[in-house]
C-alpha cells in the first residue's frame, strides 16, 4: 500500500486529483510518493453530541477524539447507540425523518454541523462502509469504484481508470479483478464485494473513513482479509469502526470506546474511551469490565 505523503487539504487544492502511477506488479514500495493532491486524513473530535429521533433521546453526551491515521473501535451491547453515533459522524442519520443532533463534530477545526455546510459536502469527505456489502448492481466493477467520483462530476476517462486501479490496489483486490473490470459489480464473492465497497469509499480520498460492522456479514477468511486491510489503511486514513466483536476490536484498533445503555428507553452513553490495550486489560469502569469479560452483552 503506497504511503500517501499528505500534501494539502482539498479546499486549498481546488479539487483536482490525479492518481499514483501504478506500482510494479508484485511489490508496493511503501515510500512511493503520490504525484498530485489528495485529501489528508484529519483529526476527528466529537463534543457534547446528543442524538434524538423525534422526541426519543437516543444517545447522550458523547465526547471523544480520534487522532489522524489511527483506528478507533466503538464497542458495546446491541442497541447502545454505537451505530447511531457512527452515522452522526457523516450526517447519515439525516436520511431518517425526525432525526436530529445537538453538539458538534469537528474535522480538524471545521464543524460538520455548521449551518453553511450541507450534508452532501460532508459525505464527500467522510466516507462510509456498511455492514452488508452493497455494490451497485447496474454498474461494472470499474464503474462501482469510481461511482462517487463520476457522480461528483469527474469525467476524464483516463484519470478515472487510474484512480480505479489505485483504489483497487489499495484494497488488495486489483489482481483478482483486473481481468474483469467490466463485469457487473454483483458478480464477486461477499468478501470481494466488501473490499470493492471499501475501494469505492477510498477512491473519494476521505478525511475520515467510517465502517459500520464491516465484517459481520462475512466468513472468517474474508474477515481476516478485511482486518489486514484495515491495518494497512490506517497508515493513510483516520478510521472509526463499529464492531460487535470484541476480539476484533482488540486486534485491529488503537483506541476503543465502550458504549452502554443504563436501561431500555434510556439514551446510550459513552462509558469509557482509552487506548485499546488499557481498555482490554485494566478498564476503569465496572460496566466496561463486565462487558469485556462477557458478563453481559
Amino acid at each position, binding site marked *: 500500500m503506497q504511503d500517501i505523503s499528505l500534501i494539502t487539504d482539498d479546499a486549498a487544492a481546488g479539487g483536482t486529483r490525479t492518481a499514483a502511477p501504478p506500482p510494479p506488479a508484485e511489490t508496493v514500495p511503501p515510500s512511493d510518493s503520490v504525484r498530485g493532491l489528495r485529501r489528508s486524513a484529519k483529526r476527528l473530535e466529537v463534543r457534547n453530541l446528543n442524538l434524538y429521533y423525534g422526541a426519543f433521546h437516543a444517545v447522550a453526551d458523547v465526547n471523544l477524539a480520534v487522532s489522524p491515521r489511527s483506528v478507533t473501535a466503538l464497542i458495546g451491547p446491541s442497541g447502545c447507540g454505537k451505530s447511531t453515533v457512527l452515522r452522526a459522524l457523516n450526517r*447519515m442519520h439525516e436520511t431518517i425523518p425526525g432525526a436530529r443532533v445537538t453538539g458538534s463534530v469537528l474535522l480538524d477545526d471545521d464543524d460538520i454541523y455548521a449551518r453553511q455546510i450541507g450534508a452532501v459536502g460532508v*459525505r*464527500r469527505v467522510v466516507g*462510509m462502509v*456498511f455492514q452488508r456489502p*452493497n455494490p451497485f448492481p447496474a454498474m461494472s466493477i470499474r464503474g462501482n469504484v469510481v*461511482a*462517487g467520483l463520476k457522480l*461528483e462530476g469527474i469525467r476524464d476517462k483516463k484519470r478515472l481508470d487510474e484512480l480505479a486501479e489505485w483504489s483497487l490496489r489499495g484494497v488488495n483486490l486489483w489482481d483478482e479483478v483486473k481481468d474483469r473490470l467490466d463485469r457487473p459489480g454483483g458478480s464477486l464473492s461477499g468478501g470481494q464485494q466488501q473490499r470493492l465497497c471499501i475501494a469505492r469509499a477510498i477512491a*473519494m480520498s476521505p478525511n475520515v473513513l467510517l465502517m459500520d460492522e464491516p465484517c459481520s456479514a462475512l466468513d472468517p477468511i474474508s474477515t481476516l482479509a478485511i482486518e489486514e486491510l484495515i491495518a494497512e489503511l490506517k497508515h493513510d486514513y483516520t478510521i472509526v469502526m463499529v464492531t460487535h466483536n470484541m476480539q476484533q476490536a482488540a486486534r485491529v484498533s488503537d483506541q476503543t470506546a465502550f458504549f452502554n445503555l443504563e436501561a431500555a428507553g434510556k439514551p446510550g452513553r459513552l462509558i469509557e474511551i482509552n487506548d485499546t490495550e488499557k481498555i482490554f486489560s485494566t478498564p476503569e469502569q465496572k460496566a466496561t469490565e463486565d462487558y469485556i469479560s462477557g458478563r453481559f452483552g
Partner: protein
Amino acid sequence: MSLAPLDRQLKEPLSGVTGRFPGSRRRHVTDVVVHGVLLLVMIATIGLLVWVLAYVAGQGLKYLGPQFLTQTPPGNPSHAGGGFLNGIIGSVIVTGIATLLSVPFGIAAAIYLVEYGGRLARVTRFLTDILVGVPTIVTGALVYAAWVVFFGFSGIAGGIALGLVMLPLVIRSAEEMLRLVSGDLREASLALGVTKARTIMSVVLPTASSGIITGVMLAVARAMGETAPLLLTALGNDLFVEFNPTKRMSTLSLQIFGNAITGFKAAQARAWAGALTLVVMVLLFTVAARLIARRSGVSRGR
C-alpha cells in the same frame, strides 16, 4: 436379534401403519382429492385459453397472408381481398404516441411516490388505483369532450386517450419496481456524497430499469387491444394508410370492430385475420417483456 418383527411391519398394509399415526389416512385421502380437483381446474383454465387461441387462429389463418399485411381494405366492404395495413400502421403510431405521453409522467409519478412519499403521495396512489378501474369508453368520452371538440378527430387524440389508459398501469408497475431496489443501494450512494436527485437518476432508476421496461411493455400490450377509447377520438380510417397523426387514423382494433359488424362474409374474414394479428402482436410483446425481466434477474410481482 432377529429381523423378523421388522420384516412383518414393512409388509403391513397402509391402514395398519397409519393406525399408529392418528388421522393420517384421512389426511392422505383429502390431500389426493384436493390435488386432483386443482389439477382439473387448471386443465380447464388452460384448455379454455388454448381453445380461444386455437379458434381465433383457425378463423384467422383462413385469410391471413402477405396481402393482408400489405394492403388496405377494398373500398366496398362486401368485396373480398385487401388487408389491414392502415390499421397496423395506425396501431403502431397511436400506441407510440400513448407511450411517449404516459411513460415519462408515469415514471416521474412513481419516483415521487417511492422516494418522497407524504400525504400527496397517499392521495396520488389512491387516485391511481381508481384510474385503473375507469371504463375505457369513459376515458374516450372525456378526451372527446376536452380535445376532439376543439381539435377534431386525430391520431393524437387517440394517443391521449390510450395514454390515460396506460398511465395508471405504468405508475403502478414502476412504483413496484422502484420499491424493490434495496435501501442499501440508496444508502451507499448517499454515503458517497451524492445528492438525492442524482442517486435516484443514476443508481435507483438504472437498477430498476429492466423491471420498469417490463411493466411498460405490458401496459403497451394492454393499450394495443383497446377499442372503446379510440371510437370517439381516432375515429378510424378504413380507406387509406394515414401517417399524419393530426388526421383521423385507423387502428387494428377499430378495423376489426368496423369489419366485424358488417354483415359481409368478406369483411368478417378480414376481421378474423385482424384479430389473429392483434393477438399475435400482444403475445409477442408480453413474451418479450417476460424475457427481458427474466434475463435481468428481476421477477415482476415477487
